[in-house]
């Protein structure tokens, strides 16, 4: 940072402001000249993409809140009114609904990218930890938001998930009643869920700010996992990565628009267009697709408390990932054995997603237990052992050296 002096602003207003609050200098430093490793691949697009997705969600959500009514008798109808009577209400709502799926997809890719390239290792442990925290708040926000339409799946998701706390010994029942503000999920629950659903995205926003602060302090990791050593290793963030991110955003928006305009209810459950009925549980309660892996883990354990603990542990374990991975080499590219186990974990995660959607009976339960078992074995056994047994490939001395070597190889071929 010290190597790039603050620019001399020619515009007098900018100069005046910047001398008193160096916001323009900061933006110049962090968004324009910020030295970024020159070898980032497209997997590095998903961080900024997640940020933009969050902004789309907050924006569309603010406009939805202008018409939504958080009341058990009016919530469902108020959303139908948004869809039918409000100008472009259907568009705002479909954007909000489908962007959630995009957000989770992008964040999952972002998380697994970090796992493959060892982005959680020193000195980026805190950066990683804040990221896990963001994911947890995201989960809470998405769950609260899903309850708001007050359809059948909304209501029963709220009932099932809030009932998780009844697994807490001694105070479980009281805790649930406190969460509900009544003796079951009802009007009071809906109102507090709306209140919190409006609040938490801004908490995420603040955490994202910390995430970026930590990122710009430790600097970006890169596919080689080698720290930046000299200016030749980097490129200025603008225009190189701004344009690369912009292109990635274009692709993401294409996918999003396709669903918003042509299959807006693809990720939704049809039964959620039936208004909540506290007397009738739908035949199959299935969470949204992005919760399925953890739902499968919850159901893998026949014990109530055990299932809940395990589900939270499966995310909490990410916090201590920097401790569990004992390998000295950062990037998976130079870890021939780890590479395989990484892809097995990805497959396991997708398999858990699939199992989460299946009914909890017969062979699915057994498979769910095996998949859950493997998930934890990966983090608790395989990763620590790999650091001892694996013989990593030679790591290039610097980013620019590797890039040049790559070009020579290309030229020779």
């Amino acid at each position, binding site marked *: 940072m010290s190597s790039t002096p603050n620019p001399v602003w020619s515009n007098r207003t900018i100069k005046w402001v910047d001398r008193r609050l160096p916001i323009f200098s900061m933006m110049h430093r962090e968004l324009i000249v910020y030295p970024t490793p*020159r070898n980032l691949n497209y997997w590095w697009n998903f961080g900024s993409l997640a940020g933009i997705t969050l902004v789309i969600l907050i924006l569309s959500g603010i406009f939805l809140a202008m018409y939504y009514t958080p009341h058990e008798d009016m919530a469902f*109808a108020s959303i139908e009114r948004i869809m039918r009577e409000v100008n472009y209400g259907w568009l705002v709502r479909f954007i909000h609904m489908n962007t959630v799926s995009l957000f989770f997809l992008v964040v999952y890719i972002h998380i697994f990218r970090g796992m493959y390239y060892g982005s959680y290792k020193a000195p980026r442990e805190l950066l990683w930890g804040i990221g896990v925290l963001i994911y947890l708040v995201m989960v809470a926000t998405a769950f609260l938001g899903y309850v708001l339409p007050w359809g059948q799946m909304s209501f029963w998701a709220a009932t099932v998930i809030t009932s998780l706390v009844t697994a807490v010994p001694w105070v479980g029942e009281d805790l649930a009643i406190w969460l509900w503000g009544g003796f079951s999920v009802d009007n009071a629950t809906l109102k507090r869920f709306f209140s919190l659903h409006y609040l938490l995205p801004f908490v995420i926003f603040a955490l994202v700010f910390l995430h970026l602060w930590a990122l710009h302090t430790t600097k970006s990791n890169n596919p080689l996992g080698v720290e930046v050593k000299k200016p030749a290793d980097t490129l200025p963030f603008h225009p190189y990565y701004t344009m690369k991110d912009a292109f990635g955003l*274009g692709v993401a928006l294409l996918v999003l628009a396709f669903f*918003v305009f042509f299959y807006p209810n693809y990720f939704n459950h049809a039964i959620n267009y039936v208004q909540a009925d506290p007397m009738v549980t739908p*035949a199959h309660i299935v969470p949204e697709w992005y919760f399925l892996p953890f739902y499968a883990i919850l159901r893998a354990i026949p014990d109530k408390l055990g299932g809940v603990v395990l589900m939270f542990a499966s995310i909490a374990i990410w916090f201590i990932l920097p401790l569990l991975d004992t390998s000295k080499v950062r990037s998976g590219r130079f870890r021939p054995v780890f590479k395989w186990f990484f892809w097995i974990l*990805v497959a396991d995660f997708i398999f858990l*997603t699939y199992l989460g959607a299946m009914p909890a009976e017969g062979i699915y339960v057994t498979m769910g237990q095996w998949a859950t078992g493997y998930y934890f074995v990966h983090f608790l056994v395989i990763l620590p052992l790999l650091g001892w047994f694996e013989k990593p490939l030679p790591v290039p001395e610097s980013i620019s050296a590797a890039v040049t070597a790559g070009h020579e190889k290309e030229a020779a071929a």
Partner: protein
Amino acid sequence: MKTLTGVATAAAFAAGLALAAPTAQAAGGEHPPLKTQNWTFEGVFGTYDEAQLQRGWEVYTNVCKSCHALDYMYYRNLEQIGYSEDEVKEIAASFETEDGPDEWGEMFMRPAEPLDPIIEPYENDAIAMLANGGVVPPNLSVMTRARDGGADYVYSLLLGYEDSVPEWVLEADPNFELAPGKSFNSYFPGYAISMPQQLFEGILEYSDGTPATPQQMAKDVSAFLQWAAEPELEDRKTLGRYVLVFLVVFTALLYAYKREIWKDAH
């Protein structure tokens, strides 16, 4: 090349995660495959067929209306399916709606106006249950959104009645017995449906002269309910086509510009 592989793997990963998720689940036993129809509103260029929707409205008013509501809808909405302002006024006026209280504090009945909500068949759920063997006939205005299979499901259900329990059900469950007051429907979860068969030959004559066979009526009313559930569909798809074309061009330009910038950085 490597970048393209990256994008391709990302896409595959995305597809794997997202598509594994909402795998359709059959509820309550086996059902024959839905009688899938060719609908005019399907696909990227889908639009509604106004004549069909008007016939569907005729089926709704003659057959469904006596038990099923169209919540969240108004008579004025009918202008969207091709009725003129005066025709809508006339349609609305043929229904009575409650208004009031008047200056004596009494509620009174008056002919409905285009601004009025489409009248509901029952005053409240208790009366609806009383009249229908303990079951509230569901609201139809979101029906195609609220059932997997959408219009195809509604169509299949309307034509899915059997006079007696068919062999294939008894093979799966020899003890299957239809509760009294219920009808057998191949597509209804659990097969036992409270609504008796409604569509028969000759129950109504279409004002446009189309022969009103059960198939025709089922198809028309299913399309009508699709419109009732997604009145925004045509606007949505039209706008969507523009947005997609815009984004394809824009993304292509971004890609070209990104390549141009990165040319000398590699």
